[in-house]
């Protein structure tokens, strides 16, 4: 004779799990915003091309990248705010429900030269890991 048992699915528990998933996703978004704030604040601003060339991505993708050639001097606060806004926009577009890595990139052609002088990614890695 076969045996069987029936488990009652607790709808309430399912709702709580969904709520927890939502809370965790918000926490991850908060952390990504914190990283975005830090990376843009510690970035140098001359023309603003570097600080507005950051992007967040999951996996491969075409990074945001601007050249500083023939650009006028930028207002620091405006450029930092725009760079931060770009990253916030990326965060809102990311599907964070099933990922374990998000990549911060800077696609400006002079990103390596900036890193040599200002160590932006070195500081981000030290502060946030990665």
């Amino acid at each position, binding site marked *: 004779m076969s045996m069987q048992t029936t488990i009652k699915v607790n709808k309430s528990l399912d709702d709580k799990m969904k709520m927890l998933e939502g809370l965790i996703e918000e926490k991850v978004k908060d952390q990504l915003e914190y990283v975005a704030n830090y990376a843009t604040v510690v970035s140098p601003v001359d023309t603003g091309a570097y600080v507005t060339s950051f992007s967040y991505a999951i996996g491969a993708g075409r990074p945001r990248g601007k050249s500083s050639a023939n650009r006028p001097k930028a207002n620091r606060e405006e450029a930092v705010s725009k760079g931060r806004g770009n990253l916030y926009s990326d965060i809102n577009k990311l599907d964070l429900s099933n990922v374990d890595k998000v990549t911060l990139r800077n696609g400006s052609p002079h990103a*390596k*030269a900036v890193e*040599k002088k200002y*160590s932006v990614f*070195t*500081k981000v890695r*030290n*502060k946030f890991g990665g």
Partner: protein
Amino acid sequence: MASIYNDIRAALETHLSNVSGVPSVAYENVSFEPTTGTSFLQVMFLPTERRPAVRGLNPQQRYQGVFSILVHTPEGKGPKEADDYANILLEAFEATTDISFTNSNLETINVSIDYAERQQGILDSPWYYVRVDIGWYIYK
């Protein structure tokens, strides 16, 4: 106290100055004219965090940051020289090393090395350089 940054920098720079087998060092905001064709190290002290380590009044603080060393070698001569210097530096600042320093007030601090890692070599004419990052922390 805020002057701990002076002591941390001094601890790391003194430790570096005692490492043998590496070229001369260009320190931050000190006049240094590199000679093309002659290798040199360039250091940067990068504090990244100062946070209470515990809750409560007057908590001990955790300070952390990076001591970056850019190993510059002449371009066009292959990566070996830069690799060799980077290896010496990684060994001198190996993770879990404690670096002790006593300041002029006879206060001694111990800076702990969290990690030592190198990045890829990059050509930046007339140099080829390798970045060696020393992650440090201290509770004070």
